[in-house]
């Protein structure tokens, strides 16, 4: 699975209220509609500036706060291909795997807004085309890779009827 796109960079501790505000998440289950408000409190122009396949890049503790699965779903429906951060909050991390949004843990100090990245999840390589640097990625544990590679937890349960992670 190879992904390419441009970087939209954010700081540390981006919480799920910033990803999708509570005032929107209760209004609808239409994720294309929710996606229009993704990251709005940090950057009102974010949604209109995203091209299909772009990356959200951030510092530490991305996705802290509430357990709302609308957060990864709104990101997916804004056509972001993956989130890249120094570290992720635990519930958000699970929610990404379960909904099929790839996440990448690495040192993001060497990535800037507007950089063009090439990511190969299978081989664990992140290449910054703009700076020419290759950045090592922390690999996902096998349990999560299995769920992600099957397209998320819904597809896993459709296929197996229960957990089948051994």
């Amino acid at each position, binding site marked *: 699975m190879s992904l390419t796109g441009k970087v939209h960079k954010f700081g540390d501790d981006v919480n799920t209220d910033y990803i999708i505000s509570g005032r929107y998440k209760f*209004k609808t*289950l239409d994720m294309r509609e929710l996606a229009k408000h993704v990251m709005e409190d940090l950057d009102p122009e974010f949604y209109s500036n995203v091209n299909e396949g772009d990356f959200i890049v951030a510092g530490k*503790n991305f996705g*802290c706060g509430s357990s709302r699965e609308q957060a990864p779903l709104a990101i997916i429906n804004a056509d972001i291909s993956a989130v890249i951060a120094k570290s992720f909050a635990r519930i958000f991390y*699970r929610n990404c795997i379960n909904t099929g949004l790839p996440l990448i843990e690495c040192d993001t100090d060497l990535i800037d807004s507007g950089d063009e990245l090439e990511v190969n999840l299978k081989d664990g390589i992140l290449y910054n085309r703009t700076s020419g640097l290759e950045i090592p990625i922390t690999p996902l544990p096998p349990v999560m890779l299995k769920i992600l590679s099957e397209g998320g937890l819904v597809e896993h349960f459709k296929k197996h009827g229960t957990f089948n992670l051994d």
Partner: protein
Amino acid sequence: MGKTIAEKILSAKSKRDVKANDIVIADLDFTMGQDGTSGLAIRAFEEMNAARVFDPARVAMVIDHSAPSPLEGVSALHQQMRTFAGNQGINFYDIGDGVCHQLVPEQGHVVPGDLVIGADSHTCTYGAINVFSTGVGSTDLAAGIISGKLWFKVPETIKFVLNGSLPRGVYSKDLILYLIGDITADGATYMAAEYTGQAIADLSVEARFTISNMAIEMGAKCGLMEADDKTIAWVKEHSKKEFEPVQADADAVYAQVLEYDVSNLEPQVAQPHTVDNVAPISAIAGTPIQQGFIGTCTNGRIEDLRIGAEILKGKKIARNTRLIVAPSSRQVMLQALKEGLIEIFVESGAAVVTPGCGPCVGTHNGVPSDGENVISTANRNFKGRMGNNKAFVYLGSPAVVAASVLTGKLTDPREFIK
């Protein structure tokens, strides 16, 4: 080698001898969703081609975040939950019953030693009664209510040893805010927290819930306490279930052990826009306040209402200041009515609203205006949290909120406590 509480509970529930960083599939004792997360869980349940939940008695859905419904879209979500709950025969709590994290222990659904998931990040609250409970997303909840199981990474544990006794006018909220300020919003990410020591032993079970509730605000997966006599008495009063408390071994291995002496702690306030931006009240007293809020799964219990009412009794809140009070459950509201607390709030000038989450999550019941400052007993103060990203939310104890709405500015509650 000894085990932590988290390692022991996950060993028992996975029927394996596990230690930190192992990955297990474990049996769930209870599962819960609220109105912000259940809609997606029901959708995932249907997409997974499931027909029945694994055990209706072990599943609850609660309408609390946006209750009563302020919008058509929310009404549709609520209706979907009512239909699902009716068809499946699960535990169901409708508008006005209360906040999920008050109801789950209050109604006796969970007991010491249990493994519990909830599609709400503050599910860690029940750690105060020795329950390994943790927040998950909607798809995890769907998998949990279908199979009765979920996969977990066994967390490492940070142990907080809290020595000394809290001074007068200083509460468990001040203590947990201080700890979060000290170790920061990601200081315990992926880990379990264990809270122990004289300061915890001194607290009532209700006050302990406030501490475990906010474990997630330091990134923790759960906020565990051992069960002492107070815990056992409280649980027996609320639940008929049999239980076996789980204590940590003396030689358990911890990622970190942090010791604090709380004897000189002063009231603490989290400043906008992060929970770990904590200052003692003396450093920020005098900041103007337009709205106060007493309630939530953090501080909406009967003891919290008593603390607020004692300060407000016979007084009026300041001009151009508002106070909203949301009891955390119907039972709490009834008890507050019996004790005359609701009368005190209403006479002081407060608006008392439906038991539930109130304005905490910004959907209704008191969205602040641009540039306004709010002092709240909730657990989050993120930008936009209360529905307006141009407002500023401060977090404190019920005493800080009550004192601050009397003066119209952030105020040390000890000025009002005899």
